[in-house]
């Protein structure tokens, strides 16, 4: 049996993959390079501390890792022994000791785990770096975890360590990654003051920015022409509704690709994205659908059928209305007016089953676009058909 896949290289959608190009983060990348440019000129003369803040999926980790790869390659070309070390503090339960032990282990893989304090370990790390004439950019991702467990003391130790080694080469620069600066308020004034000088805040991505990011990954991960624009657009829409979370969108794209492969499809359809989304989100709440009124159900059934039969991500209100008329005929009921349907659309959108947005692309004014982002159309159709058949029998 031959196995074909629409993926060209699915590792490009892996959470640990750091793309060469980071769409919409060029400015921040340049800024980081500016902050640390001394490492390329006079690495022993100073160190730097930068904080990167932003919500989940705004590219904090990717930005930092891309920067790390760029600057180390540049420094190594110039003969500077620079290492970029990225540590997720949560993985080490926020313990300064475990974090420092991990760093020392990079240089001495079998370094014993017991017999000294975190402070001694910090001294050992500096000794190791001195011996190897190495400099490190230490990125502490999910910095909140360290602050919550160790408080001001650990931050103070990390940021002020150079002060106890006057006239010695500087070795450790810091990048702290956290969601917001709120956690820093817990620290005492002196620890706070050492951190808060350089802050790069990453705003949540807009829909179009998410589209660019996803298109970029599509070109890296999928075979040509296997992911239609509508699929990317729906994925971006979902990622946007998740607070502009690019990581979520990328994961969704991967899952959708897996669904397409499982069904032996030639393209990743919007329905694959809906299936992928429903596997991530809480499954459709059947009670929500059951509680809808008759014409709300009929209208929703029409929309579900539209998406089941087409490969589009969006339906116009006119298209939905036409399919609704057919459904009403099937169930032997008189269709409701356009204004009524407009109200139903609002209800369905408020419950979270549908999503609506106004498109301004037409030359003759604006039209309403309906999308079904979270629920696979076939599942919704099945559920509604059962409910409506029961209601029809009840009416007879």
């Amino acid at each position, binding site marked *: 049996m031959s196995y074909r896949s629409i993926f060209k290289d699915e590792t490009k959608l892996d959470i640990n993959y750091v793309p060469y190009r980071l769409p919409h983060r060029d400015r921040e990348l340049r800024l980081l390079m500016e902050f640390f440019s001394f490492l390329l000129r006079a690495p022993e003369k100073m160190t730097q501390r930068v904080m990167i803040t932003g919500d989940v999926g705004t590219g904090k980790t990717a930005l930092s890792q891309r920067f790390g790869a760029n600057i180390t390659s540049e420094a190594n070309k110039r003969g500077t022994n620079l290492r970029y070390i990225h540590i997720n503090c949560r993985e080490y339960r926020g313990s300064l000791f475990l974090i420092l032990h991990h760093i020392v282990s990079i240089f*001495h893989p*079998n*370094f*014993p785990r017991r*017999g*000294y304090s975190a402070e001694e370990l910090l001294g*050992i790390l500096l000794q*190791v770096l001195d011996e190897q004439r190495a400099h490190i950019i230490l990125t502490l991702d999910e910095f909140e975890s360290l602050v919550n467990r160790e408080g001001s003391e650990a931050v103070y130790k990390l940021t002020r360590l150079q002060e106890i080694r006057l006239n010695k080469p500087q070795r450790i620069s810091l990048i702290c990654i956290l969601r917001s600066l709120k956690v820093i308020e817990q620290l005492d004034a002196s620890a706070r003051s050492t951190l808060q000088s350089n802050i790069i805040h990453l705003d949540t991505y807009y829909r179009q920015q998410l589209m660019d990011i996803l298109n970029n990954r599509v070109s890296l991960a999928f075979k040509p022409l296997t992911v239609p624009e509508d699929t990317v657009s729906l994925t971006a829409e979902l990622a946007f509704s998740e607070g502009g979370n690019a990581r979520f969108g990328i994961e969704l794209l991967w899952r959708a690709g897996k669904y397409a492969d499982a069904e032996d499809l030639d393209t990743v359809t919007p329905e694959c994205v809906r299936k992928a989304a429903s596997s991530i989100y809480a499954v459709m709440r059947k009670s929500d659908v059951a509680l809808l009124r008759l014409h709300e159900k009929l209208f929703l059934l029409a929309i579900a059928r539209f998406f089941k039969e087409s490969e589009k991500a969006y339906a116009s209100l006119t298209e939905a209305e036409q399919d609704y008329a057919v459904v009403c005929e099937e169930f032997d009921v008189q269709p409701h007016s356009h204004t009524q349907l407009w109200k139903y659309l609002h209800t369905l959108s408020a419950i979270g089953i549908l999503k609506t947005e106004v498109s301004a692309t037409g030359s003759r004014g604006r039209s309403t676009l309906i999308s079904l982002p979270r629920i696979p159309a076939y599942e919704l159709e099945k559920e509604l058909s059962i409910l409506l058949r029961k209601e029809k029998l009840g009416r007879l």
Partner: protein
Amino acid sequence: MNIEDVFSSRLRMKILKILMQVGELNVSEIARRLGVNYKTTNKHLEVFEDEGMVKHKVFGRIRLYRLNESSPKVKAVENLIEVWEHANKQIDN
């Protein structure tokens, strides 16, 4: 140290093999892996160090031992162990 002083001691051979495999270890860890006490391990390491076969680095209270790769004796022992184990594998196959 005569060559028979190395080869007649299982423990000494094992220490050399461990350091060859792992690269660098502290005394307690070598002792733990061999199932012997710290003092005995330390004594053997000191003998090796006097011979210039191992060297150590001090990090606070931690001493990390490694083979002295520039020692001709170490090179000879490494070569012998490699050839020996390779031959054993071929017999097994």
